[in-house]
């Protein structure tokens, strides 16, 4: 058990309010210290593929789940999703979309690209656990080792 525990949830979100609300929900359920937040699509890709500012990161430390806002600066959420699902190493990472509306074209496109689940903003923990359960990570995320 090292202090440098790898993040198990990667939150990709640009809106500070949404970040705070998501963090609040996750913190309330004692997951805050396992969350890495990136602010745009480019940064998300850098983190996942351990390059740029994250080149020091061990690429083998793969996040358990990615919470991905679809509307992002620089590289948008759908493009991030496309690149994750196109990479054989990263393809297995469950990606949960964070959307502010059920926009038909976003939903269709996301499913085509292999999205695992949807959570409507603001992040409701109830919804989050439901999504996690459907993708089979519930036990893993909730039954974590005791905090240091």
């Amino acid at each position: 058990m090292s202090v440098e525990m790898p993040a198990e949830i990667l939150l990709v979100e640009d809106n500070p309010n949404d970040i705070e609300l998501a963090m609040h929900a996750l913190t309330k359920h004692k997951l805050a210290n396992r969350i890495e937040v990136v602010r745009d699509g480019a940064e998300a890709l850098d983190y996942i593929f351990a390059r740029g500012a994250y080149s020091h990161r061990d690429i083998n430390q793969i996040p358990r789940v990615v919470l991905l806002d679809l509307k992002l600066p620089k590289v948008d959420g759908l493009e991030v999703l496309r690149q994750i699902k196109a990479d054989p190493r990263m393809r297995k990472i469950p990606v949960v979309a964070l959307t502010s509306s059920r926009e038909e074209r976003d939903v269709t496109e996301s499913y085509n690209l292999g999205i695992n689940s949807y959570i409507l903003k603001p992040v409701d923990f109830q919804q989050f656990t439901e999504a996690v359960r459907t993708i089979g990570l519930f036990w893993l995320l909730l039954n974590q080792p005791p905090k240091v």
Partner: protein
Amino acid sequence: MKLTPRITLTFVVYAAALLAAVGFLAYNSGRAALRSATISELQSTAIEKQGALEAWVEEKRQDIARLAQDPGTLTHAVELYDAPSGSPEAANAHRLLLEEILPRSAGGEFMSLMVIDPRSGQVVASSDPTEEGKLKEDRPYFLQGKAGPYVENLYYSVALQEPAMTSAAPLRAPDGRLVGVLAGRIDLDEMNAIISRRSGLHESDDTLLVSTSNLFVTQPRFVIDPVVLQRGIHTQAVERCLEGRSGAIDQLDYRGVPAIAVYTWLPERELCLIVKMDQAEAYAPTRSFGRAVAAISALALVAAVVIAVVLARSLTLPILGLQAGVARFGQGDLGFRLPDSSRDELGSLAREFNARADSLAQKDTSLRARAAELEAANRELEAFSYSVSHDLRAPLRAVDGFSRILLEEHAASLDGEARRYLDLVRDNTQKMGHLIDDLLAFSRLGRQEFGRRTVQPANLARQALDQLNGERVAREVEIEIDEMPEALADPVLLRQLYVNLLSNALKFTRKRDPARIHVGSRTEDGKPVYFVQDNGVGFDMAYVGKLFGVFQRLHRAEDYEGTGVGLAIVQRIVHRHGGRVWAEGAVDRGATFSFTLPERSGT
């Protein structure tokens, strides 16, 4: 019929008729020329034969006259005349006379010669002993011969049982006494030879003499049996000739073969002279001429066909070009222009067309530009509404999220009033959220895929009602859904339309007991009109114009919740189908929303 074959056919038919007429005329005039040439040839032959015949007869007359003046013959004739019958002087004179005339007959100028006593008409001496003693007192040659040299025309001699011709001349003593008539039978073969002597110009020419009793006088070439004065001939030429006429005729000859005949009446000889020739030979050149005309006509016809095709194509090619060009232009190739180099009517037509095409293309270009502008504006508008609804939602989420955290986690440090205000904050953010959702739904309508098919409106209304089940919990509502004529519509949109209309109806009948909603159709002008009717609070018809506007509301929000988008969506759905929607109602008397859809048939 297409233009090219029609022009070609017209031209060819015209050419064929022209060629046929010219060929017919040429053939006929050629035939007529041949006929007149043949006739004049035959006529000259006839004249020649007639001359030869007359010369021959004259020769025979002179022969007998000369013989009658022969001194030896005359001397013995006088002796015989003067000697008493049966006396030795008479026998001597008879012997001497025969010696004079015998060399002249049978190989001489005559076949036989005889001396007739002018007193009794008895033959007193003859080269043919059987003739002696016979009486010839009634014979024309005897009677005429007493006066001067005479040739009797052809006759049938009963005594000889054959045709005969006899010339005669008086035997006169030096003192002028008539002592006898010298008669000589003429050899008819000589005449036959004259008549049948051929010109050598033709194969089928023939000359014949016919007697007044329609009997052959000379042997025709094409008859083997002897026919002279034995067989009759009754052709038209002969009939006319025997009437004393002369001329030419195309007719069947004595064999029944078509011939051209020239007939000449010989009054002196009382004979008919026919010179004839087979039409087959006479007109033989016309056959080859006819073949030549036919061959030339055929060639000319082929040439006419070629010319016609070339001409037709030269006419129709530009027309076909025009047609193809117009078709190409019609199919959307607006840049296409017709070649307009020719200076004829087609060229001006092409120029006219090009001018129209130019203006059309110009209009099309500006129309396209306009359409592109509109499309761009529409896209911008959509992008705008999309991002507005997203971006409006973000701060709302924050307000709602933090208010909720305050209420859930800091409730203890807030008094009742603060909690009520926070509840109001959350209520309003919820409302704003609905507004944004509705706005988004409304703008989405314009972008949604649109697929029409045959639908049963009653089924869609029932599905819509199922979807609204939550809104009629614990309420007494009588809902009647009739069967309706099927319609051609997008099922998703039509269901949404019923959701909105039924939701409205449920909402505005909330204070009625029992609430009644009727979904059905009626027929107006032969077309179905679908409607949703309720017995709710209704509306003032004065405001009917505002009913279908976005965010237009006729009721206070405290009484009836809603964003004022529902009916706007209904109107938009109907309009997208090309239908019409309207509302009727009165305050507290309920409302009826009616709409039309395109009919199923004819699409």
